[in-house]
């Protein structure tokens, strides 16, 4: 009897854990929500990559800056540029940061003219300079040509749809139960898993390597 009691929960859990790896959890929801809400300039890597990482960041969050400067280059080089992982950048401006939405507006405007990555990197890199006064424009101007900057300024000033992706990203974050930045949603086999906070790159790399090796 004791042996039975000992073994039964183990069998139940093991079965469920295995099912959880490939199960249909959130499959329908992921299929319905994911790609339909994504602007192309916010996506990096092959659309056919077996793993998608959706990164929720706030431009004023210091941890997001660290992640973007320290982890992103390695992640891009080892997994995204080799078409093994797709990255989707999502905005999650926190209410306590008054200039996060403005920064996201500049980044999205740059995305409209094909300069998303350059401007996002610059906004994160120069975060300490604009975070207190909201002077993002001079920082963005340093990495764009005058004509590109003029287009970005115009879009930031007039485009009423520039915040649409931010609104959608925030709604999606709320559905995923995200309440901090940086956060990551790992999408694999149609299953969405929230990783928050994001573990160090060595741990992330080990996980991605083992998942991709099993394919």
């Amino acid at each position, binding site marked *: 009897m004791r042996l039975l*009691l000992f073994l039964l929960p183990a069998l139940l859990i093991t079965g469920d854990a295995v099912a*959880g790896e490939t199960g249909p959890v959130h499959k329908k929801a992921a299929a319905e929500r994911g790609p339909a809400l994504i602007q192309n300039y916010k996506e990096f890597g092959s659309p056919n990559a077996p793993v998608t990482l959706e990164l929720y960041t706030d431009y004023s969050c210091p941890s997001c800056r660290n992640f973007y400067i320290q982890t992103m280059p390695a992640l891009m080089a080892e997994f995204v540029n080799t078409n093994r992982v797709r990255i989707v950048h999502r905005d999650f401006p926190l209410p306590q940061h008054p200039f996060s939405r403005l920064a996201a507006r500049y980044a999205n405007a740059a995305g409209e003219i094909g300069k998303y990555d350059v401007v996002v990197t610059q906004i994160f890199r120069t975060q300490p300079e604009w975070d207190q006064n909201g002077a993002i424009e001079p920082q963005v101007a340093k990495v764009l040509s005058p004509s590109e900057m003029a287009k970005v300024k115009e879009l930031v000033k007039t485009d009423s749809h520039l915040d649409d992706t931010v609104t959608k990203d925030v709604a999606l974050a709320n559905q995923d139960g995200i309440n901090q930045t940086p956060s990551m949603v790992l999408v694999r086999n149609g299953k969405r898993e929230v990783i928050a906070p*994001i573990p160090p790159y060595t741990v992330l790399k080990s996980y991605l390597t083992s998942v991709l090796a099993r394919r």
Partner: protein
Amino acid sequence: MTRWLLVAGRVILGAILVYAAYAKLRVSWLVFAGSLSGYQLLPDSLLEPIAKTLPWFELALGILLISGVLARWSALVSTLLLGAFFAVMIRSYAAGLKIDCGCFGPGEALGPKTLIRDGSLVALSLAVTIGAFVSRKRQRDRADRWRPVRDNQRLDVA
């Protein structure tokens, strides 16, 4: 009556540990590694091994408690484990870290509610441990009291 209370406490504690393990094992270990990293306590090199093994350890402990195999020792280890978790949670909360508890899988912020719940678990585990050791000691004392009488009876018969 006390014996049944002890069994009930042990089974409840075991079931909670099994559920905690289940909640972690149903998602990838990276989720738990993320929660662990939030506590800013472990070196990077330990995050992966702990995230991979701790849920299985919780599962084994829970099953031992439910089944009653090695009851006293599994209760003692549970108390030490839950006590360590609770201490880390208190420390992180006092340090003002806004992090995920990671206690029963993802999506639960560390706060007063989680602290009260885990504090209650430590108290339950401690009560079960003390009860299990006291109960065992009483059983031994009772056995020792009766042994000489039985020996005498055997001598008489002989």
